[in-house]
């Protein structure tokens, strides 16, 4: 019962949404895209999409500079 977030193994929580997972991981950057098992989840869907057990989650954050 675990998931992988940016290569790090963390506990899986039943019915946890992307928003809740990001909060739990303390990712506070303005986020751009979350990918769950190679599928892109858009920001507008973060509060609805539930993270499945055994999934691989990639969180890409944007920081200033250009």
């Amino acid at each position, binding site marked *: 019962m675990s998931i992988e977030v940016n290569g790090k193994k963390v506990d899986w929580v039943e019915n946890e949404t992307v928003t809740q997972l990001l909060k739990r991981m303390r990712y506070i950057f303005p986020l751009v*895209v979350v990918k769950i098992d190679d599928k892109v989840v858009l920001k507008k869907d973060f509060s609805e999409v539930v993270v499945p057990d055994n999934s691989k989650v990639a969180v890409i954050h944007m920081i200033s500079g250009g």
Partner: protein
Amino acid sequence: MKDKKIEKIIKKLKESSVGIAGLGGLGSNAAISLARAGIGRLVLVDFDKLEESNLTRQYYFMYQIGKNKVDALKENIEKINPEIKIEIINQKLLKGSMEEPFKDVDVVIEALDNAETKATFIEEILTKLPDKPIVAASGVAGYGHSDRITTKCLGKLYMCYDEEALSSDDDVLTAPRVAIMANWEANLALEIILGEDK
């Protein structure tokens, strides 16, 4: 064989277009590289005027200070490649219509500076132009650590990414690193247009 490859690349690039959002360190350097590579058309979007402090890393010259970046960059590109078609849009990208200037290009390059704006822009392109490849960059600031930079492919989004770099609010922007990221973005745009170099 080499000649055939070159011919094919020249033709394909000439028929292709790239839109660039933001003409600072990332955008100006990416545009110059794409112009040298022989891209057929560029759409350049920025609302800023050139300031002296920009010259530490952006592709402009002293005498252009005070000019609109879109005009100054067009001028610089035309000195390198006068055949390229350049569309300039001298306006700020506003939330809700950020995708507008990029409907008609093959690849979009995100070259904005502020993290929030970057995130919003990428989101708008991904949702409103779902078939459009977009190349973006995050983690530009600092110097050294070239080998921390990687490419992350997330569907139609190609990120040039250094997750350990600090925000430019807390770190310096230096010419070599900014230019590496800019050219990384331009190189990704070429790869998207031409297909993987096998």
